[in-house]
């Protein structure tokens, strides 16, 4: 008997949320599992750094080129710095880093846990009275939540640098002009909000990956499915949450401006 798809969606969402809360609630085990958390931070953070930076560098370069062409029509090429910084800090940095991480880490995380599930390793842990959420899920969620924002900082900086290089070489903007306008691109609150977004995306992607892994059944096909579902669901959630968080931020800012 096949369940109605909506019921499956609700069941999956519920499981994922409970798993996330359970993992976060096990923060008391973090010290005991510090080795596992460090190992995951290495995989999620250090090993993803080159690819994330490469992505952000090229995105920054393309972005500078495209906006530069338009600004040149109005003779305002100097403004490129402002646009790049505001876009990078508020949107592209957190968002594209989240994409890179989901593709590189989320999918493999789901496949890894899924394989553990179908090869009875998760059951074995449970039979040994080792809570799989504490042993497998919690270190991954914590490492992801820590390294997501860290990578966002690196990615954003590299992206801005990429923009500056293109602005300087191809658009003929002097570096000091770029920086002068760049300063006006973002205020501290923007930066914090961008990092908060990154944290939300990271938690969300880690929870989706672990939940899909833990619910895997049916051998190699099931593992493939878990990995695919993770990428699709995590990316969809990322774009959706990004929109929500951005509109919320705008609303708050307007409210604050209106009060003052």
């Amino acid at each position, binding site marked *: 008997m096949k369940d109605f798809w909506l019921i499956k969606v609700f069941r999956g969402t519920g499981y994922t949320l409970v798993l996330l809360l359970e993992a976060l609630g096990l923060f008391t085990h973090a010290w005991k599992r510090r080795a596992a958390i460090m190992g995951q931070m290495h995989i999620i953070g250090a090993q993803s750094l080159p690819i994330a930076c490469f992505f952000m560098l090229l995105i920054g370069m393309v972005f500078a080129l495209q906006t530069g062409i338009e600004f040149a029509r109005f003779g305002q090429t100097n403004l490129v710095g402002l646009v790049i910084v505001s876009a990078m800090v508020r949107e592209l940095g957190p968002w594209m880093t989240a994409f890179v991480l989901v593709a590189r880490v989320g999918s493999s995380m789901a496949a890894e846990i899924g394989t553990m599930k179908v090869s009875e390793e998760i059951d074995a842990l449970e039979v*040994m009275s080792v809570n799989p959420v504490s042993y497998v899920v919690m270190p991954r969620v914590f490492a992801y939540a820590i390294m997501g924002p860290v990578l966002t900082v690196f990615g954003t900086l590299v992206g801005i640098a990429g923009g500056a290089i293109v602005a300087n070489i191809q658009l003929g903007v002097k570096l000091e002009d770029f920086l002068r306008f760049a300063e006006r691109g973002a205020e501290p609150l923007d930066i914090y909000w961008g990092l908060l977004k990154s944290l939300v995306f990271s938690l969300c992607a880690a929870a989706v990956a672990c939940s899909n892994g833990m619910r895997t059944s049916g051998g190699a096909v099931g593992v493939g499915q878990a990995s695919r579902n993770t990428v699709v669901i995590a990316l969809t959630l990322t774009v959706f949450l990004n929109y929500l968080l951005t509109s919320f931020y705008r609303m708050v800012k307007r409210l604050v401006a209106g009060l003052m």
Partner: protein
Amino acid sequence: MAGTDTSQRKARVDPNKPVVEFIGVRKKLSGRMILDGLDFSVRRGETFVIIGYSGTGKSVSLRHMVGLMKPDEGSIRIDGDEITTMTQRELEVLRRKFGVLFQSGALIGWLNLFQNVELPLLEHTKMSKRKRAEVVQEKLELVNLWQDRDKFPSEISGGMKKRAGLARAIALDPQIVLYDEPSSGLDPVIAHEIDKLINRLRDSHGMTQIVVTHDMESAYTIASRIGMFYHGKMLQIGTPNEIRTSAVPEVQHFITGGREGAVSTRSDAAIQHGRAPGMLSQRTAEAIDAAADAAPTEQVYVLLEERPDDGTPAPAGAPSTTPELKPEAELESTQEHQTHEEKP
């Protein structure tokens, strides 16, 4: 030291009280009745072997024993404690009594053999590092893997994985050890090594062991008692000799590899078409039983033109080309037709 420990344990509890008790356990999984009123009990210190056709839910009964699955009905007692109503926390305590050897060993992939065996000690005891290393060495030497302690599960053979899994299962000296198909996928020599290990654990450590297998040779070697699992129930429970000389046709059929004895029309029909008797869907099984009551046996086989459970179409050129086989839908209509005829 282990010896005194065991004798003390024996003195404390009544040796005749069963360690594991299944009473009328029923479990339905994806529309099939896997356990259908399962009754049996295992005595302290014995090796109880569960045999039966593959896919009939022998492993499912093991999972019930450690609370990984809950039955729909019936009761399961471990040392007299009812486990079907236990909370997660109580189950965690209960599981310390168990060591489980999974079919593929289920070693954690990112830990080497030493760390895998050390894992339960790290999680559940406050032993010093030196003491842990001693225990791990003892267990790994027992399964003859000490020299391979630095290898990772991906670097070793299936037999080694199983032996390492066994070392991990007994790391905390459990009272009860469960084995899920310990000899499947191993060559006869290694399979025999595992049998010898199982016997050694029973003799020297006094462990109660429950083994699920379909390897009869191994069953005769290790069993104190054998239980034949059939259509979700225990068909016969007896000593190896009683099973060997069993008068039950289904048991004879199984232990002689189908050369002697017979099975019910339902299973016979399934076996004729290369299916495990336990793998029939509830609907088909019932249809066969009904048809068997109404018609001569030969016609029952026709009913097996069943779709696989996952819903994919049956492979082309499969038995469907055989002339006497008809699609299930058609059969059902035939059957309806028959019953219809009988009514007046």
